């Protein structure tokens, strides 16, 4: 599937490339078709587009110069981190500029006294933890791609992970950014302190999917590593029982570090793939991880065990060693590659629903799967209601990819209809762009787009993402109010 760019790029790309070469090293301006090829997609591989020029700047000044040139040439520019995003947020605009931030890969400062790290955006998520773990610290958000995904991409996507239940998303774990706007202006927002200075711009830059500016530096909070981490592996003979157990755990005042659930199809797939030794008789298994001070973890393991038993668990195992805990996780962490063994392709969804809607939604997903003839494996962050149904398909079978996409969209509509949302952590990008009206009215989206216009009035930065309808900023800024035809006529004038 190709996503149509909002406007064809009409500019003279060779002239633009020549201008880029005046500010960037020659090898940092890529125009060769073969060399551009790897940039045609991010991890949302259903969407591919060839960028016209790929640039790999090395300094903030170069980023600013590239953006200003793109603005002056009227050429759209798409920022990219490691390209691990799952929603097509870094899908190039055909013939546009792709701005890869991979050369910004240094940690600029570690400040234990203020519990933060200052990093360039191309540093990997895990790279931050690696830099501080010997001193007993870590960076909490842990998207499954953490070995490869970059912190700049995490900020753009407001990435989550399995431990968001207790530690929050990226937005809850960063303190400041340096951002370059489309005008080439370098802005510093926040720093090593906690109160925002004025409007809390950091909270909307995080998760803005590369539409507001290009991140050139990030200050993240780091946390002391917990004293102990243990996990429970609980099996249930129904998803409903598992869901009820999760609700009871939270209602009893316990916030585990993570709660992950898998259905029978996924259990079979991972047993086949890596044999983690999950119970053979379970309709669903729950991994409940508890971290913190040793005394607390041991106490909570007991309490969660009791709650699980009360909810009809057919098996409960508590990890007694780090090896055993990692074994519990092995199956969960292998769920995606295991699914890939079942069919050549899979499409991963990311809707979030209120926890108490879990059982009916999963039942409905089962019906939809049977009706479509496409198998769906369910792995999900059950603690925060974030579902990741994996729709298995074969792209070589004509029509199957489209059917998978169609089914996926229906599932996301279902999530929204029960009070949930389209995306819990993967972002809207191109993938869910056209579903935005399921959740938002035109007015809702226009208000969001006005924010975009405040940062990028020419709309050159990552166009065609997030918003299904492009409005010109001038149009959005116009006041459609006619004097004399005022509402609220019963109110007196003053």
């Amino acid at each position, binding site marked *: 599937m190709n996503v149509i760019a909002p406007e064809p790029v009409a500019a003279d790309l060779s002239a633009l490339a020549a201008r880029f070469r005046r500010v960037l090293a020659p090898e940092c301006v890529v125009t060769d078709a073969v060399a551009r090829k790897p940039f045609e997609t991010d991890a949302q591989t259903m969407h591919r587009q060839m960028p016209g020029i790929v640039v790999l700047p090395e300094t903030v000044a170069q980023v600013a110069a590239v953006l200003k040139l793109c603005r002056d040439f009227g050429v759209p520019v798409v920022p990219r981190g490691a390209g691990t995003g799952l929603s097509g947020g870094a899908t190039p605009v055909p013939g546009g500029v792709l701005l890869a931030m991979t050369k910004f890969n240094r940690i600029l400062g570690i400040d*234990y*006294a*203020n*519990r933060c790290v200052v990093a360039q955006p191309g540093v990997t998520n895990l790279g931050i933890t690696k830099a501080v773990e010997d001193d007993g*610290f870590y960076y909490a958000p842990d998207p499954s791609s953490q070995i490869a995904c970059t912190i700049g991409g995490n900020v753009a996507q*407001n990435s*989550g992970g399995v431990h*968001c239940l207790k530690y*929050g998303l990226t*937005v809850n774990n960063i303190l400041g950014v340096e951002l370059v*706007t489309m005008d080439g202006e370098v802005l*510093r927002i926040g*720093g*090593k*302190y*906690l*109160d925002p*200075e004025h*409007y*809390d*711009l950091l909270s909307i830059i995080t998760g*803005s999917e590369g539409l507001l500016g290009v991140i050139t530096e990030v200050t993240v909070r780091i946390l002391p590593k917990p004293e102990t981490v243990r996990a429970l592996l609980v099996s249930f003979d129904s998803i409903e029982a598992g869901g009820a157990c999760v609700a*009871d755990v*939270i*209602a009893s*005042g316990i*916030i585990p570090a993570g709660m992950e659930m898998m259905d029978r199809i996924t259990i079979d797939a991972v047993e086949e793939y890596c044999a983690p030794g999950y119970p053979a008789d379970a309709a669903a298994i729950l991994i409940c991880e508890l971290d*913190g*001070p040793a*005394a*607390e973890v041991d*106490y*909570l393991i007991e309490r969660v065990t009791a709650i699980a038993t009360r909810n009809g668990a057919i098996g409960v195992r508590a990890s007694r060693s780090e090896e055993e805990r990692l074994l519990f996780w092995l199956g969960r962490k292998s769920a995606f590659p295991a699914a890939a063994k079942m069919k050549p392709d899979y499409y991963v969804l990311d809707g979030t629903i*209120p926890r108490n809607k879990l059982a009916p939604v999963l039942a409905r997903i089962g019906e939809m799967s049977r009706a479509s003839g496409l198998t769906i494996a369910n792995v999900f962050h059950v603690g*925060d*209601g*974030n579902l990741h149904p994996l729709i298995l398909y074969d792209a070589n079978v004509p029509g199957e990819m489209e059917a998978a996409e169609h089914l996926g969209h229906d599932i996301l509509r279902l999530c929204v209809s029960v*009070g949930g*949302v389209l*995306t*819990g952590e993967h972002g*809207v990008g191109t993938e869910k762009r056209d579903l935005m009206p399921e*959740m*938002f*009215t035109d007015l*809702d989206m226009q*208000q*969001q787009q006005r924010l975009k*216009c*405040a940062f990028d009035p020419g709309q050159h930065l990552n166009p065609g993402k997030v918003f299904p309808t492009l409005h010109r900023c001038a149009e*959005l800024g116009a006041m459609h*109010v006619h004097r004399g035809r*005022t*509402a*609220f006529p*019963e*109110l*007196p*004038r*003053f």
Partner: protein
Amino acid sequence: MLWLVQCGKTRSYRGMTSTYKPTDEKELAELISWASAEARPLELVGSGTKRGLGCPVAINGHGTPARVDLSGIAGVVFYEPEELVISVRPGTPLEQVNRMLAERNQMLAFEPLDWGWLLAGESKPGTIGGAISVGSSGPRRVKAGAARDFVLGAHAVNGRGECFKSGGRVVKNVTGYDLHKLMTGAYGTLGAFTEITLKVLPAPEKTYTLLIHGLKPERAVEALTVAANSPFEVSGLAHVPAAEAARSQVSYVGQADRAITAIRVEGHGVSVTHRMEELKKLLAPFGPLDELHSMNSRRFWSEMRDAWLLPPDHQMVWRVSVPPTNGAAVVAASGADSWLMDWAGGLVWLGYESAAPGQAARIRAAMTEGGHALLVRAPDYVRREEAVFQPQAEGLAKLSARVKAGFDPSSIFNPGRMGAVSLPGAA
């Protein structure tokens, strides 16, 4: 002739600012559409308890804006304790929200301040809409996060009179821009909330506090850093000099006759006991230790939260957010007559007996590693003239103005409240 509208009834008053009291989103949207068309500035208030915070709403000699009283748009939309979520209308009293949550052993974990103590000398918690609009976070900020981290979604009316929403009711959500988080702490200059959905958390079973006596500020920050960098999940890190500690109603603090460094440990009983023991071992080198339990502990942290320990007759009070290691230096350079330190040094409250030229400059010059100095108590004439908010770099200030215009193009909401006074229609 001026007018007052209350509960849908129109009555006339002489010599008063006109006030409108819409009772639902529709009435509010109609009122704002009209004000927008007429370019009439509006002051948005809940119960009005935080009008003394930020800059006074002003329209440069063009009279007083009409007031929109949002306390009529009140009530709980839904509260689902097992989902850790509550949705309320903005005029709902904060006390009512806190009480409802407490009945189910839950809480607003960001500890919204009772600004009444600083601004009016008495408890005036105001409305939830007000608490979110000023966006201030209490001592638990270091562990639990900021006010905006708990705002999951909102419905609001923009300066065009259009109703919009953002976010949702689930914690994990990256669909669209988090306008509700941007509006948190925006002092009602971007939009008028009509519904706010908040994440809530279980209230701790136990709240203990470890006290260290007699430390100097620099040494206190060292001790607090040791605690903050330990794996013992502390949720409060404060230091109070002797004179301010003497004002505490908690006898262990009030009668200590020495500076107090306080570390809060909350959670399940066995865990709290264990962590207190471990922290005592870690902090033994800093001097004699003491403990506060239950009521005393909770009382002390509410005194910290509301800066209640600052002398009430000190006219000027600043709230300064800096990198924690910069806190003691800011205190030393500030020349303040009274002060408190929270967030392991990252939050400094400074009190001065009276306004004096150069105070703001002196504080801001001491913030060598960035931060935000907010003037939170001052006579009105000072609030009108002083840079109440931290002055922004030019590029950011312009961006903020464009963001504001995207929500409120005619600048009708709370003009001047966050600084720059702009008249609707003025160049």
